[in-house]
């Protein structure tokens, strides 16, 4: 029973990670790719961690897993934010893919910042 749960979580996690990889290859621009790289990848890792936790439910393993999950959740947004900010400010933006762009307007007057 436990093995079945473990297998299910590991497979789901692998699937989510695979979709993150596919997203990186197939999505059209940097921002949509970052959605794949941050979210699907984080979900994939968390599912794998849950799977491992079910298989080895000892205090040593669980505390390490909790720490990995926590650091992942805290650091991924920071990295994504920095990449997004840098990309936007250096002009790596495909305007054809944007319906509304309120950041460009906000960045325009240089004296205001």
């Amino acid at each position, binding site marked *: 029973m436990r093995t079945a749960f473990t297998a299910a979580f590991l497979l789901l996690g692998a699937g989510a990670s695979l979709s993150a990889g596919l997203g990186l290859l197939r999505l059209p621009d940097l921002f*949509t790719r970052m959605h794949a790289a941050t979210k699907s990848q*984080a979900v994939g890792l968390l599912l794998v961690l849950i799977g491992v936790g079910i298989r080895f439910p000892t205090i040593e393993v669980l505390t390490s897993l909790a*720490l990995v999950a926590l650091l992942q959740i805290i650091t991924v947004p920071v990295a*994504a934010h920095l990449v997004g900010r840098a990309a*936007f400010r250096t002009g790596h933006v495909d305007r054809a*893919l944007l*319906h509304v*762009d309120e950041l460009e307007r906000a960045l325009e007057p240089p004296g205001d910042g």
Partner: protein
Amino acid sequence: MREFTVRAGRRRAIRLPALVWLTVVWMLLWDRPTVGNLLSGLVLAVLLQLAFPLPPVGPQLRLRPLGLAAFALRAAADLLHSAGPLAWQAAGGRGRAKRNSVIAVPLRTRSDLILTVMAISLSATPGTLVLDVRHSDATLFLHVLGAADDAAVAKARRDVQALERRTVRAFGTRDDLRALAEDRS
């Protein structure tokens, strides 16, 4: 001028929450809690705070159990959800890629902590990505996946404000709650 205020803001001080947090992380790294780990963790936490002073973080974080439970449940659901639509879009290929939007959402609260918690949970929310933050008026700039018309943009804005409400109810101080209530009237 600005540089001066930033540096003056950094004070060498031992803060209890940071002390507890650093010690807990240290003990988690060592697998099992022992007295030796606890003591070495405490020493390390003190040394770290002396070596890398940080500016004080404004008003304190409150933890409101009910709001926190609602916030955590919703965040977990969002995180699981966020893998789904994206997988579909990736599988759909380039041809079907929808247009997206970059929107500005001004927050009603001015707390750095609320801003931080929101930025983290927005990263776990399906279809949103924080691109930039304007600190002066607490405005978040978000990339919203699939927001191809004005209705979708308006909905994204409402979703973010709903998240702000949940965040404030889970972590906000009384001032934050008041800022939220005033806006509604």
